[in-house]
Structure formats: structure tokens, C-alpha cells
């Protein structure tokens, strides 16, 4: 069955390095979301796109984070430079924007910044 995929599943990096996370939404879904999950804050929305256009990135630290959708099958989230406080699980989700508004989540990328 159709699922959201994310790569890498795990990433360990050193402070200051660039990190790129990728997401492939479910084919036909026009809305893509990036969330960050931490023990303290739970799930926070970082940014989301509709039809590849960014609609809201107010949850994202602008100085180091950037999110793009180069095409309808790929969304990327970059952190440059990474910091230890960025350590978290990053989830991508996609939705079709239909009446039920269900979001389908990927397996997440566990990021550890040393």
C-alpha cells in the first residue's frame, strides 16, 4: 500500500555539519508537512507545502533550517549548520487535502547532533 518514505532513518553527525533529510509523499497527495518530535515539546510543525508552494514555515528557525519541494515526489529539510539542540525525530507527513484532512506520516528520521 502507498506510504510516505523518509531517508535516512537515522543520522548521527557532528555539530556544524549540514544535514539533509528527504521525504517522498504518497503519490497524488498535494500537501506535505514537516514535524519535529522531542520529549519536551512533543510534535511541532516546522513547515508545510501545498502543490509544492510553501504555505507556512513559521515553526522553523530560519537562520539554519530550510525546506523545499524540488518536485511533487520529493521534499527536503536541511539544517546548516546543525547544533546539538536539533537532535530530535523529524517526521514528514502528506495529505490529499480532502474533507477528512487525514495526514499520513513517514517513519521519521532520528537525528543526533554531537
Amino acid at each position, binding site marked *: 500500500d502507498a506510504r*510516505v518514505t523518509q531517508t535516512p532513518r537515522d543520522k548521527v553527525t557532528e555539530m556544524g555539519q549540514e544535514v539533509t533529510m528527504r521525504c517522498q509523499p504518497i503519490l497524488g497527495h498535494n*500537501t506535505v*508537512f514537516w*514535524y519535529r518530535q522531542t520529549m519536551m*515539546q*512533543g*510534535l*511541532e*510543525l516546522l513547515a*508545510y507545502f*501545498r502543490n509544492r508552494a510553501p*504555505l*507556512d514555515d513559521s515553526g522553523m528557525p530560519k537562520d539554519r533550517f530550510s525546506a523545499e519541494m524540488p518536485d511533487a515526489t520529493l521534499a527536503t529539510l536541511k539544517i546548516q549548520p546543525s547544533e546539538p539542540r536539533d537532535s530530535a525525530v523529524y*517526521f514528514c*507527513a502528506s*495529505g490529499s*487535502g480532502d474533507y*477528512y*484532512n*487525514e*495526514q*499520513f*506520516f*513517514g*517513519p*521519521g528520521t532520528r537525528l543526533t547532533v554531537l
Partner: protein
Amino acid sequence: AQRVTQPEKLLSVFKGAPVELKCNYSYSGSPELFWYVQYSRQRLQLLLRHISRESIKGFTADLNKGETSFHLKKPFAQEEDSAMYYCALMNTDKLIFGTGTRLQVFP
């Protein structure tokens, strides 16, 4: 401001006991509320939505606008219900999540 509050980080019960996971919200308007669940080593998935008034895996949730609550309930917990549960509020296209409650069901 729109907000979702889940006051319990951890809820532990024995198998067969009733379960109630609390969720309160703050929203100016008619809310659209969801419960998402994350089982161990699995991805987050939708459990139920209030507009459907459905019962999934024995769970129900009733929207109480007077108390601004959307508590998740199950009369008899099962071990396989052990998971992380998130209450979420839809704000335009965006989901605002609570911090989650971990449910542990002991045999």
C-alpha cells in the same frame, strides 16, 4: 491562541481496566479534533476523528465544547493498546498536537 493540552505524560493501567486519556483544547471557532497513535517502532497513524463519531479498536472520543475537551476512552484496556497517544487540533491545514500521553497496559 490555539493550543492542545494533554496533562498526563504517562498513564498506567492493568488489562481490562477502563482508560481515559485526557485532552483539552483552546480554539476560537468550531474545532476539528483528532487522536493519533504511535505504537512501538511504528509510524504515527490516525486513530479517530471527531467528525466521524466512529469507534476504532474500542476507543471513542466525544467532543465537549462546554468543557473544551476531547477525551479518549476505552472501557476495557488491552495490552496491545500500549502506545503513545496524541490529541490534535486542525487549524486551517495544520495540525496542532498535544505533547502526548504514553499508555502502558500491564497484563
